[in-house]
């Protein structure tokens, strides 16, 4: 099972949108996919109309006494299952810290699902914490949405610096532009400059489109509801590049 995490230190940058859309695309490609909603706010769980509740909470999950499949739910999309969010995830750091090798905690939960799934997508909470380190240790690829702004670019640099210290276990970083508004000059300029200036930034721009924003109302991924939209096209390209990063598809 390969592990891909959508991660950013910042909130509201399009992590959940990327995770649910890539989950839908992976399932459509025939991959048995599990999406773990690690954010206690439970946005991904909400989008799939699944109650953000895990019996026994974070403690029970990381103790690995219970098979995570028992608290998982199938989504409306065949082949895509959800390990839901739970409000207790806000204390996941503390729970991990109680165990030996806390940085392996997320990986230990995922290990139990390895035979049943081809891909795990982790939708992370916006933070940098022990949970993040555990995610970095488990993930093969880190998808990092970058909003076109100077501060976001700086945050990406900080993340890359942090991960460089963790080499060689650090996941491959695949950053992409998110919430791009082409009416704004700076967005257009950064869209042009970033992929060539920063290694690991893919030439993928998820637009700041109303259909992405209304996913919360339709409660379904745009790749399922509006497959021909520009946003769906961007997620399709992001998924293709993710497959390349995972070694499932040759370099173009």
């Amino acid at each position, binding site marked *: 099972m390969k592990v891909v995490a959508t991660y950013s230190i910042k909130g509201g940058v399009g992590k959940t949108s990327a995770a649910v859309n890539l989950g839908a695309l992976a*399932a459509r*490609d025939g991959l*048995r996919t599990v999406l773990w909603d690690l954010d206690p706010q439970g946005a991904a769980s909400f989008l799939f109309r*699944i109650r953000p509740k895990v019996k026994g909470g974070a403690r029970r999950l990381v103790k690995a006494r219970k098979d995570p499949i028992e*608290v998982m*739910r*199938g989504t409306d999309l065949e*082949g895509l299952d959800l390990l839901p969010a739970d409000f207790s995830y806000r204390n996941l750091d503390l729970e991990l810290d109680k165990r030996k090798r806390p940085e392996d905690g997320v990986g230990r939960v995922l290990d139990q699902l390895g035979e049943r799934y*081809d891909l795990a997508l982790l939708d992370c909470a916006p933070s940098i914490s022990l949970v993040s380190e555990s995610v970095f240790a488990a993930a093969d690829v880190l998808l990092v949405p970058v909003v076109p702004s100077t501060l976001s670019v700086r945050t990406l640099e900080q993340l890359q610096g942090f991960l460089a210290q963790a080499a060689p276990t650090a996941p491959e970083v695949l950053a992409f532009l998110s919430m791009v508004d082409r009416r704004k000059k700076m967005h257009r300029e950064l869209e042009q400059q970033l992929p060539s200036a920063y290694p690991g930034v893919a030439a993928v721009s998820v637009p700041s489109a109303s259909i992405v924003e209304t996913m919360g109302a339709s409660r379904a991924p745009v790749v399922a509801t509006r497959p021909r939209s520009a946003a769906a096209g961007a997620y399709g390209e992001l998924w293709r590049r993710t497959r390349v990063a995972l070694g499932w598809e040759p370099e173009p």
Partner: protein
Amino acid sequence: MPAAPKELLLPPALDLDAAIALLRERLALETGRAARDERVLLDTFDGRLRAAGAQAELRGGELALHEDGAPVRRADVDGRRGILAADVPAGVLRTRLQALAGARALLPLARVSGRVQALSVVDREAKTIARLTIERADVVAGAQRVTLPARLTVRPVLGYDKAHERTVALLVDRLGFTEADESQFDAAVRASGGKPEGHKAKPSVALEAGMRADEAASRVLTALAEIARANLPGARADLDPEFLHHLRTSIRRARAVLRELKGVHAPDERAHLRDELKWAQAVTGPVRDLDVQLEDWEALVRPLAADRAAELAALRRVVERRRAQERARLRRQLQGKRFSAVLRAWEALAATPPAAPGDPDRPRADTPIGMIAGHRIRAVHRRMVRDGRAIDAASPPEALHELRKRGKELRYLLELFGDPFPSNVVKPLVATLKDLQSVLGTFQDRAVQAEFLHGLADELASEPGGPQALIALGPVLDVIEADQRAAREQFSAVFASFATPEQRKLVKGAFGR
């Protein structure tokens, strides 16, 4: 463990529309795809997908694989003949088919035409908690159409087992649906005249120790001839390499029956069939040998770096060309009169009436099979123990090859005539024999492979890209040689397990005098 899908038959009084209307009244439903559906149901000749709980369908040029707990895997394929995993574009579907079907082709088993409506049972949040598919279908077999009973399939959604149970209970207990006693797949394949479970490659014949040898031989030879007949069309059409392999295995087993059961059949008929089966085995050998080389290809190139492996393309071309030449010869042989005559002679001998009392040509026809088989099993086992003990580091390779032949003989005796003997002796004997044969097989197969590759050198040298392939072959031959050495080193240990004093004692006791 998530719940399993449930297939239900509609109440006889309901047509499809009435059933859907009834479901809408009693369940919170979202309506999905409704369509006319034309599809071909597929499986391997031996029913591997069905045995693994999977189902393959072909719609137009699109192959779809359905498995519980997994999304549908799809890919465009050319399905004019059988579909091999290698024919499927690289991706999830190909990987899964390689695991499920191996070298076997997916073959069309039934053509189904009908109307399908997908529905979802939803909760108050409009979240899908169970999936329904309702279908009325005909099986199209030539000009005939057989209407299958309309059915409703209820599939669970992970984490909503209770919703699945409630839905099934409502349908069965309140609405008059009944549980189908066979799946749609089985019903469709049966209606097409096929065997949903597929064809077995091994004969399964019930024998009793006191059964007359001629009757036992008749049963075993009949079962083997049926397997040969069943595999012949696929071998002729070259649908996948396993047809030829199983055809050859059934021939080899029939030869073993005749070899082991002397004095059971009339000598002339037995000698004639033995000669003809030997011929049939010989003419089918070259293609099978080349199939084995091609099946081993991945293992062959694995030790090489990717660019070096690509340099072996010329070798692959040479092997495939040789196979095509041998294949053309084989097709003529399989379609020829002599091959048909072999099968007829085989079936005729299998159908020979029991020998008359005191028939001098068939002195052992009425001897109990348990006595003959037990004697042969003990004799072959004893000889294997003797020959194996004599093998040491200085023994020539031929000594191991001979031991392997004896091992095959013992294996066939146990497979074909082991039924009357205690399974607590037969099973461990077969298990240790398998381990021994595996090591001996690796030892010999590697020798044959090295010889085969050396034998291609001249042809390969004149092939475009051939010299590079010859260079790339160097490390491959090193690996083959190392494998063979390793097998030789393992021999003592596996032989010791096979020839333990305890096992010898058990064999002696179980197979009697």
